[in-house]
């Protein structure tokens, strides 16, 4: 079983996968509760353009993706401030990102295949540089969420009261959206552009079905993401499957299990009330 960890690429995949699982589930909980689930998907397509740009201009692709995605996230925020609806703002940048990506691919000379590893994710693809890049960004993200945990919780629950209490709501919103961009970029290498959004949305959605308090939900979401990542990566190794696909399938399984557990609980509570 543990023989897969003798391979350097699997060790890197597991370390990266663990970090990504934590970051995605934590940021995902805030996004899901704020009705911003599609933000992850939108930003992933924008990141795709950043990757293509990096390859085209011969820059480290994750770095160009990071810069491009963070700037676009701020752009979406700006459009929302200008009273463009949130989902429309995401759609505008989403299409823009794809257009840039597709145009660059069509003009490229042969980085098409490389680009596909970003679309679908790959455990073979995480090299030393990627791992260092991912580790630093995940550490920064977790540290910021930990520092501003109370405040993010407050604005997620009740923005109006948070503002009345004097919290810097706009700055916190901007921080959350920038951290979402970072989360998307670090996750792409393993799970792929097309599947990032499920990695962000599923653990939180599953945890929300069975938790009691906010803190409880946060830890539960992280636990679900971690377990699914370990199972998914292992399956991907032994069945020679795409890592992103395998992990997301396990996550969907976890979500369905949470739904069944939730249903059973509701029924049990109803029974108890009847007697």
């Amino acid at each position, binding site marked *: 079983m543990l023989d897969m960890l003798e391979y350097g690429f699997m060790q890197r995949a597991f370390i990266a996968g663990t970090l990504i699982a934590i970051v995605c589930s934590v940021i995902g909980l805030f996004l899901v509760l704020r009705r911003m689930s599609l933000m992850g998907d939108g930003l992933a397509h924008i990141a795709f353009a950043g990757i293509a740009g990096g390859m085209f201009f011969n820059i480290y692709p994750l770095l160009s993706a990071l810069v491009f995605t963070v700037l676009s996230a701020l752009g979406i925020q700006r459009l929302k401030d200008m009273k463009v609806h949130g989902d429309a703002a995401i759609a505008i940048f989403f299409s823009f990102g794809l257009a840039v990506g597709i145009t660059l691919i069509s003009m490229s000379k042969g980085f098409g295949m490389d680009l596909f590893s970003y679309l679908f994710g790959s455990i073979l693809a995480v090299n030393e540089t990627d791992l260092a890049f991912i580790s630093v960004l995940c550490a920064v993200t977790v540290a910021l969420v930990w520092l501003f945990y109370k405040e993010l919780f407050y604005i997620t629950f009740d923005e109006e009261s948070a503002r009345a209490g004097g919290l810097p709501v706009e700055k916190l919103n901007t921080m959350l959206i920038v951290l979402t961009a970072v989360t998307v970029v670090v996750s792409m290498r393993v799970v792929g552009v097309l599947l990032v959004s499920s990695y962000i949305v599923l653990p939180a959605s599953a945890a929300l079905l069975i938790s009691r308090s*906010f803190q409880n939900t946060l830890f539960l979401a992280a636990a679900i993401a971690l377990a699914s990542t370990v199972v998914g990566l292992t399956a991907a190794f032994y069945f020679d499957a795409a890592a992103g696909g395998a992990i997301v399938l396990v996550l969907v399984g976890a979500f369905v299990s949470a739904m069944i557990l939730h249903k059973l609980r509701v029924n049990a509570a109803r029974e108890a009330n009847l007697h």
Partner: protein
Amino acid sequence: MGMDKDTVIWIKGVTFSYGAHIVLENVGLEVKRGDFLGVIGPNGSGKTTLIRIIIGLLKPDSGLVRLFGAPPASADARARVGFVPQKVTNFDQNFPASVSEVVAMGRIPRAGIMKQLGAKDRELIEKALDEVGMLEHRDKRISELSGGQQQRVFMARALVAEPELLILDEPTVGVDRYAQKRFYAILKRLNSAGITIILISHDIGVVSAHVNKLACVNRSVVLHDVSKGVNPADLICAYADRMKIVRHGHAGCPGHCQDGVE
């Protein structure tokens, strides 16, 4: 009217409009320490706008607003205010938060940004929950509570900041009569303990039974001193011709009237 150390809110010549639509025009108001002020008026009369100006969420087009002698947007003034919003509009019923987590939010402005809550904060959270009679429910998910219980939790969240001024926006909408009675009893006790209270409502009868001052808002603001006796008929001022007063025959609730928007 004069601003002194007992003046909690001082408003003079305030005008506010959304685009071309004037919501408040040349409004003046003074609230003193220990007052229990009811703010009444029909929907769309500017009640909530007035409150949002007082706590610095909106900036008036013109006029002067002072909260504890300072501009209302200042952190110092805001930290002395507890705000209980309209729960129905601000609260996702499926939000995964325990009762004590919700109350803890109220400590954040006092504890300071990026600071973890300490033993003293936790003590105050328990005290506030006890004050509103919700201590035994502290580990429950907020969505499991009834409307009246949820409202008391939001009250505890405002109280945990140890406010000198408590502002409540339509706190008893969707809450049954018994729970309302209990809620007003808590408000009365807090007011006796020296907390200044502002209560927005469109239920004139219930409000006028508890407050010592009434502000009728309808683009303008007219202040009535209830403790000196006020003729309910005068209060129709706030409603102009948009409403009629419906009398109910509730024993022990003389002059109880409820708005019926026609």
